[in-house]
């Protein structure tokens, strides 16, 4: 186990280094000099050169890269070209919105999807089993921002129960207010996420229900519940966990559209602003932090899968998909 952990950790570090190289190169391929963000229209060539020098974009790329990595190693994400504020604290502040938003949506989605997916598979011959499959089919076709708009109209504008958007200026100092502004975004993400999760859970459950080991267990006298509990649950959860990892990672950044519907100051909207303003340090910082999160989630998912399924223990990376 220790050997595996070390190898898997090495894989994590190598992926992170590779990803940051890709990130850096991709961003340098964007047209337009970042110095343009610093100078006014019609600036003289000398002024532009001075601006380029001040942010270091006149130095060779490898040097810029090592400089950036060196900063990262000390936990410094750089300084925004546009606001001249350090990126790190800004990212941390945005995470205080995005992390609770993503995690609660994720937990809610799992709470909806696991029982619903199981019922959709186990009771697929009943009307409500079919209904569940149908609803999930509908759910994956609904654009997430449109669902958000509809929820705002129903629960904020008409019923007046919840705010239609925004987040308290002073963040979490008034927890009740902060939670109230996150309810609708959380429900929006959770509903769309659970629609696709239901399909995965349903398909994983069907594989188990069709399996020989479950039939054998039943033939040996276990009740359906016992057989499911002893053999079904473990087997069905392995593929579902790898999907959960991917879904969690993609929601972390995919929340950008929902953050836009509800005017939330999250990580996604920081990235969107950064992209619009060609603010390299912001884009780089946000993407680096997200990459780290994505890789850590994958790492955790692999460990959990191996803990559940001994058959995966011979392999380095356990992605079932």
């Amino acid at each position, binding site marked *: 186990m220790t050997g595996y952990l070390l190898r898997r950790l090495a894989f994590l570090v190598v992926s992170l280094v590779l990803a940051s190289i*890709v990130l850096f190169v991709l961003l340098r391929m964007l047209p337009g000099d970042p110095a343009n963000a610093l100078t006014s229209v019609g600036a003289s060539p000398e002024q532009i050169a001075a601006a380029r020098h001040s942010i270091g974009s006149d130095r060779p790329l490898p040097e810029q890269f090592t400089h950036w990595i060196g900063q990262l190693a000390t936990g410094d994400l750089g300084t925004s070209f546009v606001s001249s504020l350090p990126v790190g604290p800004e990212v941390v502040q945005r995470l205080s919105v995005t992390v609770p938003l993503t995690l609660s949506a994720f937990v809610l989605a799992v709470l909806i999807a696991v029982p619903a997916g199981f019922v959709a598979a186990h009771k697929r011959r009943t009307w409500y089993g079919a209904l569940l499959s149908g609803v999930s089919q509908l759910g994956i076709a*609904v654009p997430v921002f449109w669902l958000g708009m509809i929820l705002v109209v129903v629960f904020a504008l008409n019923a007046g129960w919840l705010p239609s958007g925004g987040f308290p200026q002073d963040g979490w100092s008034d927890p009740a207010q902060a939670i109230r502004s996150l309810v609708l975004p959380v429900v929006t993400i959770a509903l769309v996420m659970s629609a696709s999760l239901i399909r995965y859970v349903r398909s994983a459950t069907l594989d188990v229900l069709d399996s020989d080991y479950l039939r054998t267990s039943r033939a040996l006298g276990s009740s359906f519940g016992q057989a499911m509990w002893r053999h079904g649950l473990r087997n069905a959860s392995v593929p579902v966990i790898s999907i959960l990892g991917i879904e969690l990672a993609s929601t972390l950044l995919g929340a950008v559209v929902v953050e836009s519907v509800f005017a939330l100051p999250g990580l996604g909207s920081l990235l*969107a602003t950064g992209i619009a303003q060609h603010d390299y340090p912001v884009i780089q910082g946000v993407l680096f932090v997200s990459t780290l999160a994505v*890789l850590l989630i994958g790492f955790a998912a692999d460990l959990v899968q191996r803990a559940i399924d001994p058959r995966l223990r011979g392999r380095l*990376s356990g992605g079932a998909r």
Partner: protein
Amino acid sequence: MKRSATLWTGCVLAGLIALVALVSLFWLPYDASDTSGTRLAGPGGSHLLGTDKLGRDLLTQLMTGSRIALAAGLGSVAIAALVGITLGLVAAFAQGWFDDTVSAFLDILIAFPTLLLAMLIVSARSATLTSAIIAIGLAQSAIVARLTRILVKRVLAQDYITASRTSGTSWPRIVGAHVLPNIWPTLAVNLALQFGLAVLAEASLSYLGLGAPPPNASWGRMLQEAQATFTTAPAGALAPGILLVLLVIGVNLVADGLRDTLDPARRRRTTA
């Protein structure tokens, strides 16, 4: 019987949208840039579905929007198929370090949401429909490449490939005669699913202002523009969303129907 019903329903739904797009090429109720109508008029009267906040006819906008939605789906999937299948084939055949590098790279790329990669690529170019299509297509090609690689490797491990190879068949012939016929059913189903995802991704990009610029009527941008007037003029905020859902459900049903028809092992499941 139910199998063909799924496929059939999907074809009808997607076909309806395609028909609307086709009709819009030859006939529209109003000119797309005609702003002569009363602003935010309700359904009925001279404008069947009403008008938007600039006085443009909603039905006209919806009809031209169907072209953008279909173009986004077809264009992205074409790029994803071309780039993804080629890359997946090459990686599967190359093996060794090249294969390892490509698959590690794809794993990292896939961890990122399609929409995010698309936003990056769109911001590197300008916000146009072409940028959006290229961006979504490239982001999706990572998924297609990984699937192709896995499928091809599975086929290449079969004994009949070794037999065919020993009897002197060239690799290109093996691809044509054994690999592609074996992998296309799974690929076709996945590409149909990618079509729906591409339509949704284009709508999201347009909603964020990163898709086709005005006066092109993308359903996503129509929704964004109608958001502020949802309660006073609900038609404009509902109709584009409903059409998006119909198109995506249609394409997904086609994918499900194809899977059930092409893969006998799954038949007994869905015919419950």
